């Protein structure tokens, strides 16, 4: 499917480029170029670079090409037929030979280069915060003092945010507390690696010995499974030392003997599921039940089984269930923006400066102080004979 699309778009790109090159009329050439650029924008999309595609369309087709068209129109240079034979007739064959050599070289490199065999870099790690800590209305979470999320309500889950890989000290505070002065409610060292996403989950009950932080790990790799999805189950029930998760429709145990505070990740095929939680060994009454739900392929699913103590000291079950598309930051505007303002600030500013200079330069260049505007004649494709003669450097013949 994608290949077909690629072939079609690529073909259009090639044809439009060729037409642009051989066109006699500059306006047509420009239009073909626009088409070509649009094709490339499309290819960008296919390469999961939506931002670039947008920029390509707005900047290139929108701004640059319009400028081209303006200039062509302004100069009246739509049609230009060479008045004299080129001096360099050997150029064309030479270029063709070079082009062939180039293409052969590139092909050889592509065939022998084994680009695809190189290990792709793993995706950037992602983190999110899950609040399942009973007795705390909302919390702030920090990794090495840097806020991950603030003011997270109980049973809420934040969206994935990209994070740098490394080892961190994970701490949570009561919402609004100053991490510098206040004591952390809980802390836990975690390791964040590339190619993984983490649901940083606070579980248990505030002040109780069982309260802890769990970094539930999702693997961000779907290359080997077509219809698979990854499911993470977290046992956040302080009272249940070990639970089983059963699928009631297929009557199979998805997870068995999940201890308190443990997160288990496993793969599942897509489909509809009706899941309940039992104390290990028992099949009688479910501890907790999930509503029936459909699980899609290529998603990350998180189930956190927790409880909340009511004012009357009874416990209510709280099940946090979430299904996300796998977080791909790659190519997105946020991703690019983040890179732009961190690692690439200097080049970014340089380019900005360059643009400014170019702008001023263009103004200065076109500002013709000597000649009044009106004298710019419309010189068309066929300049009157004699003009060629007056070009400097030619006078010596």
């Amino acid at each position: 499917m994608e290949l077909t699309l690629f072939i079609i778009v690529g073909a259009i790109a090639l044809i439009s480029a060729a037409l642009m090159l051989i066109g006699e009329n500059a306006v047509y050439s420009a239009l073909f170029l626009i088409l070509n650029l649009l094709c490339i924008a499309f290819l960008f999309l296919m390469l999961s670079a939506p931002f670039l595609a947008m920029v390509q369309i707005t900047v290139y087709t929108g701004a640059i090409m319009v400028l081209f068209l303006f200039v062509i129109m302004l100069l009246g240079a739509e049609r230009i037929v060479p008045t004299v034979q080129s001096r360099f007739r050997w150029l064309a064959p030479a270029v063709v030979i070079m082009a062939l050599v180039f293409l052969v070289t590139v092909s050889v490199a592509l065939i022998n280069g084994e680009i695809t065999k190189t290990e792709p870099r793993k995706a950037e790690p992602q983190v999110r915060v899950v609040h399942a800590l009973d007795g705390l209305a909302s919390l702030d979470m920090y990794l090495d003092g840097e806020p991950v999320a603030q003011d997270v309500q109980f049973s809420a889950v934040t969206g994935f945010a990209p994070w740098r890989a490394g080892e961190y000290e994970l701490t949570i505070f009561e919402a609004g507390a100053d991490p510098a002065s206040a004591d952390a409610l809980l802390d836990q060292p975690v390791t964040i690696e590339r190619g993984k996403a983490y649901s940083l989950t606070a579980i248990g009950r505030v002040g109780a010995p069982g309260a802890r932080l769990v970094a539930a790990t999702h693997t961000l790799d779907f290359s080997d499974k077509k219809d698979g999805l990854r499911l993470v189950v977290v046992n956040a029930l302080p009272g249940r030392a070990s639970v089983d998760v059963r699928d009631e429709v297929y009557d199979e145990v998805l997870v068995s003997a999940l201890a308190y505070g443990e997160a288990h990740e496993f793969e599942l095929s897509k489909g509809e599921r009706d899941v309940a939680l039992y104390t290990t060994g028992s099949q009688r009454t479910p501890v907790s039940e999930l509503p029936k739900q459909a699980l899609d392929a290529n998603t990350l699913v998180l189930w956190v089984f927790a409880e909340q103590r009511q004012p009357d000291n009874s416990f209510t079950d709280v099940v946090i269930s979430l299904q996300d598309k796998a977080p791909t930051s790659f190519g997105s505007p946020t991703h690019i923006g983040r890179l732009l303002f961190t690692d690439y600030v200097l080049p970014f500013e340089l380019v900005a400066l360059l643009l400014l200079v170019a702008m001023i330069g263009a103004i200065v260049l076109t500002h013709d102080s000597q000649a009044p505007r009106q004298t710019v004649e419309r010189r068309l494709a066929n300049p009157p004979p004699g003009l060629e003669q007056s070009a400097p450097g030619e006078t010596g013949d």
Partner: protein
Amino acid sequence: MDNFFDLVPLVVMIPLVGLLINLFAGRQLGERGVSIVAVGASGMSFVIAVLLWIAQVNTGYEAAVIDMPILSDWIVIPSANVTIPWAFRVDTLSVTMMLVVTGVGTLIHIYAVGYMHGDERFPRFFVYMNLFLVFMLILVTGNNFLMMFVGWEGVGLCSYLLIGFWFDKPGGVGWKNSDAARKALIVNRVGDFGLVLGVLITFWTFGTLDYYREGEAPIAHHAATDAEAPLFAPTLPGEEETHAVSGPLGVFNQAELWLEEGGHQVNFGMVSLSFETTLTVITLLFLLGVTGKSAQIPLFVWLPDAMAGPTPVSALIHAATMVTAGVYMMVRANVFYHAAEFSSFVVAVIGATTALVAGFIAVGQWDIKRVLAYSTVSQLGFMVAAVGVGAYAAAMFHLVTHACFKALLFLASGSVIHGMEHGHHHVSHGHSGHHDDDFDPQDMRFMGGLKERMPVTYWTYLFGTLALAGIIPFAGFWSKDEILLDSLKTGVDKGLLSGYVGFVLLVVAAAFTAFYMWRQVSLVFLGKPRHAAAAHAEESSRLMTWPLIVLAVLSLLIGFINVPSGFPILGWLLGEHQFTSFLEHSVTYAHAGTFSFLLATFAVLLALGAIYLARSVYSDRVLATLREDPLAINPRTQRAFALSSAKLYWDEFYFKYLIYPYRNAAYWLAEQLDWRFWHDYVHERLLRDPFNAATRALSGRVDKQVIDHSFDGLGHATRRIASRLRRIQTGYVHIYTMSVLFGALLVMILILLPLIRDWLGL
């Protein structure tokens, strides 16, 4: 009393301050102010030298090493173990030299005030004179060879500046003076080349350049038998170590220890020599330095020319002090020379030969100062020969006495020249319109009969002459006698050839000395004036005559400081070998000779005979009608006189075989080899043209099309190159882009080469 030694930097500093004042404020101060500053500086230095001498005597001749204030160590390279400090050494040898330099220097400064009166660049002259004192004192007070070298080259510089002081005299004289100055410095540099190499080897042999370290006393081979055991018991440096390390000892004591131990091997760099051979090499290289500075064969040629400078300069630098630096250095390094027998022999032969050759040449000169110059060379030959035969004390003694009487002679000759100029001025002023261009106030042929016109000058000159000729009881007698005695003794006692050779040559030289000096006295002062200028000459001013008188007295008396043992009456009266025993504290191998009545009588009689001979050749009758020298007329001596007069064609020889070839080779190298061939031919034919040819081949068509109008056929070489280079830049965007693409493609292929190779299965 110890603290007095700390004054030694002042000896150098005071003239330095003096010269700075005169340099920056000379114009404002006026002649009077400048003289006061310059003479004052020199005089204060002398006073301090005297204080140091007294301190020496009172502390039992203990040597001291004093660091330079203000400056810290000069060259320090920790990783190479190089430490060369700015440090002064006060010991009997350096104090002696200080006294001579500042004492004679002060007198000459005073004299110069009168002599230079009215000169346009009066302040500048005294700046140089003080600068000379600074360097000379650094030379003699420095505690290491490199500091000595500072002074060594510095005095050479002053000599250059002062010889060329009148560089702008009209009529070609200015150029002659400048050339003389340049000759002096370059010839000295040749000597310095040897000295530098010697210093380098010294450093790598001993790991230091210090003579002695602080608190270290000289030790001698036979120190054990000496009643006065060394105060300082040196610890032996690690002898097993194969390369020189900076040991705790100065060079001389290390040398002593190694000599005593025997069999020491010197290893540094790629050199490996026995210690004795090393010493021979070092001393021979030092000797090259000495021949330059102290005007010995083969480098003595600069000194006679150096008389182009003002007379006080000749007296101070080219007679009394600077030229004796070589002697001082060899005496300083007496430990080395004593150990290096072969070098000593060479030294003795060179010294004695120089003494004889210069004495011979002096006979044939007409210029009053030139005679004295050759006389100086000859006397320096005596001193060097003395070192060569191991008579270090005698060499120093002769140095001291010679400083007095030769300074006296030069100053007196300056007084004569002054008088002659005065007379000439008087004459040509009186008969305006008539003046002879041939007149030269220094030519003895124009003089005569000045005895009556300039009595003070005459008497002082006579004193100087007698001292130089070695007539008892004048100073020259004592010192020259000691040298002759020592060389004979070396020959007889030790059986060394150098002693015999030295003695014979020196005796003949002594006879020549007496002869040419009396010839000079006769020509200048006796008989009747031979020129109007001489007839109208006038005695010089007090400022000039007083130093003459003082020096004359010194010439008479200074010899008594070292009366030989066994001399009747005087020895008992004045003490025997005072000077030698004074020096012994710092010069390890200074030793005194016993007076030989026979030899002394022989020497005096020889001198008197030579004087008598001179008196008879240059009798009043001859002098009255002198046109040519009687020796030049006499067929028997004609040839010898011509040879002497032509200075043995020594200069001509150098010019023909060294200087012209060097210069012509320089022109050839500069113009033909470097410029025509290397610069033009190689560049254009071998580099540029093939490059252009290649370019043409690559872009033939472009070339053909563009060449016609971008090439200016009449352009000269430069423009041609420029336009040829331009040719590859046609200005056509196509060509540029094409080349860029081509280059990019090449780079790409280069990068992908391994892959392509795989693909092709290579």
